[in-house]
């Protein structure tokens, strides 16, 4: 079977890979690019464990073909931290003990990032519904929701501080 050559951007880096036409983006990330943060929980787009951003849009990478991502931008959990500096969502998940086994965590972080980019000040109820496509079997969700709520506040404060600095010149 002939492979398909694909050029794309993953977490800001230009990446090229050759994949089979039937391979999913999840297969490509895990098996070709060594990015195993996204997990296969169901393989049918129902659990959210494989969530990544595709051109800023939240997708289940098990439902996207590798060949589809030519020329597009992919963000995964591995790209969330800025070097050693954790993203506020990651920090708050740590602080709030918003994880147990950790398999759903990457998907939740990516989905929460997508939510906060769309809505910087979500209510608790908006968070609950926005994350309802991500299954967690361990935590009972409450700590996750609170962590996302707290991170939203951090991000708003960061934004404000940035604006202030800009205004000050």
């Amino acid at each position, binding site marked *: 079977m002939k492979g398909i050559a694909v050029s794309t951007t993953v977490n800001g880096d230009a990446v090229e890979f050759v994949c089979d036409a039937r391979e999913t983006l999840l297969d490509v990330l895990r098996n070709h690019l060594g990015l195993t943060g996204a997990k296969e*929980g169901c393989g049918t787009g129902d659990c959210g464990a494989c969530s990544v951003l595709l051109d800023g849009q939240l997708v289940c990478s098990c439902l996207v073909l590798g060949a589809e991502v030519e020329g597009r931008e992919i963000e995964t959990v591995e790209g969330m931290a800025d070097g050693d500096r954790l993203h506020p969502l990651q920090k708050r998940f740590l602080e709030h003990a918003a994880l147990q086994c950790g398999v759903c965590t990457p998907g939740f972080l990516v989905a929460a990032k997508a939510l906060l980019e769309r809505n910087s000040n979500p209510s608790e109820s908006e968070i609950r519904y926005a994350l309802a496509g991500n299954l967690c079997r*361990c935590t009972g969700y409450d700590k996750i929701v609170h962590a996302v709520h707290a991170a939203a506040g951090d991000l708003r404060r960061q934004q404000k501080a940035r604006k202030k600095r800009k205004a000050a010149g």
Partner: protein
Amino acid sequence: MAAADTDRRRIRGGVGEAVPHDSAHLHVAGEATYTDDIIEPRGLLHLAVGMSSKAHARVRRLDLDAVRASPGVVDVMTAADIPGENNCGPVVHDDPILAPGLVEYAGQALFAVAARTYEQARRAARLAVVEYEELEAVLDPLTALAKGSFVLPSETLARGDSRAAIDAAPRRLAGRTRVGGQDHFYLEGQVAMAVPREGGDLYVHSSTQHPGEVQLLVARAIGREAKDVVVECRRMGGGFGGKESQPALIACIAALMAQRSGLPCKLRLDRDDDMLMTGKRHDFVIDYEVGFDDTGRIEGIEFMFAARCGMSADLSGAINDRTMFHCDNAYYLPNVTIVSHRCKTNTVSNTAFRGFGGPQGMYAIEYVIDEIARTLGRDPLDVRRRNFYGTGERDVTPYLQKLEDNVLDEIVDELATTADYAARREEIRLYNASSPVLKRGIALTPVKFGISFTATHLNQAGALVNVYTDGTVHLNHGGTEMGQGLFTKVAQVVAEELSIDLDRIKITASDTSKVPNASATAASAGSDLNGKAAQAAARKIRKRLVRFAARHFGVARDDVRFERNRLRVNGQLIPWEELVRLAWFNRVALSATGYYRTPRINYDRKTFSGRPFFYFAYGAAVSEVIVDTLTGEHRLLRVDILHDCGASLNPAIDLGQVEGGFVQGAGWLTSEELCWSERGELTTHAPSTYKIPTSSDLAPDFRVRMLESGRNREKTIYRSKAVGEPPLMLALSVFHAIRDALSDGRGRPALHAPATPEAVLLAATGGGHD
């Protein structure tokens, strides 16, 4: 001493501190390595399993030519190719790895395929041509009961004269209820990778709660011995009991194929295959007859439990024993007869699941109590209190263990007050009076859960602590990490014992070559057992260091004191790493094993009597729901939980167990429904059709607290209490709040578990069956 000075002297990450899960920083970075994430060795083959499509049949012909010819396929294996024992059953050897000509459930493994890629293996596995001669299939526990089809003999536990007590009681009730099963839905499916080593040895990475059992079963299957196989598990992506016995099947197939091919082999089950092929929580049919007085106090009770065990014994013996041990829950039953049938059905063999039969027993008695209350028109909480175990009287369980640590009244009184139960019940009554369609309901239910493996010999554990010359520590024990935080808690114990900061300790993968013969991480006993074993190992080293320092510095042992990361010897301060280096230089052993066996337990299974449990864990929950009686939909409005974790080793982790357990229990009782076709095929085998709770199902008002006075009366590890399983059963309050809403102060709703919207609607419109 100034407060700041005290703080400086306290180690970081000691016992009782809410430190994050040891892998949390890896989890949030996507860097935590689960079995499927391990870098694949050169030449790895991917495996897939060909499953039976029939529930009960003889295999007339198994034609695998098309499978072999499929692209990428390297090898195909059937039962005939197994060199050793074709069994992965943990207790009774009745669980074939690959079906040897007779299939006993739809989904049973018939053959295995090895191919170059995962996709190729899975595609090939579908190409087999199988001819079956179908046999009569037993598909539910009642049919099995009628036919006398059992995986193990039925058991009876009787105390007092239940028949006479029921006959003499002023009031009587009899009925039948059902409680559904549950899929574990660990987010990480079953997976194992077997890697050949020299001389035919195997190294097996298995996502398992019981590496030692996988080791033995793999060794027997490949015709070798335990010494030839090492099993390792750094972490699982959830277990919940589903990785106690079930991983053996996966690991055995991977191991057999690795032995045949001489290449590393990985078997990872796709979600649908996982749900079809592996066992679940047992569903039960429960008959009861109860005699009680006008206040609702039980005078005599009889239970008949018929459990769907599936096609083999698996752990069903101990699970059903635990059902018998927990159908008292928090209530004194003076005259009781419990009959337990372990029904053999042509469905997947059911297995351990958080609570291990206990939840179904508690479901039974809570159902009966609710029925009594609704018959008498009393508040169910009053009837519950009427029947609570006492202190000094009415305190002996049906299995003759005396309750020595009863905190039921304390917990329930405090929770009823903080949750404002009485006022809210009145407010709900008023609301319902003026709301014909939407009905609210509230319930408070208690939990008393026995801690220890009921099989006494399993209550033992080992640990290994190595101290290196730079002062860092390698910790290993027989427990496994499935997200519950066991590794973190045990490391906190070792940090405390050695008076060093937690970050100096490396927590390492469960490994059968480091700590042998470990019991499964199960029965909530992980911290109790492994914490104590690790404590014993750390204390040995500490003792050696004290003895050495006293000798070396020429002081009495009492003059040697451990402070944070250092030793104080008569005013002189020696940093920990310096002490360790000195000790090594002076030839002091810096490695130790630790061992622990739970004291005070003894139990005679023949008479169902003794002290099976070291102690009990207690808790209680109040749930409030709103039900739409025209659609059957229901929402959880508010939950208040008060749970006894003893003196918690790590409150953040324990709180996570309480919250997560509750929500998992709520799923079991309200949204998760396993359905089988009339041919015995499981039809709910993916998250599209099998609904575990999501974040949008959560109560908007969720108040969880630990009992502040919590402290284990028994000498457990730092007086903590086990917390893995007990909180699951707090969710019985959700089920009973729904019943309360449906009852609306009148009558007994015909609602059984799971209370799915469909079941609630049927009960609301009088279509439910009793």
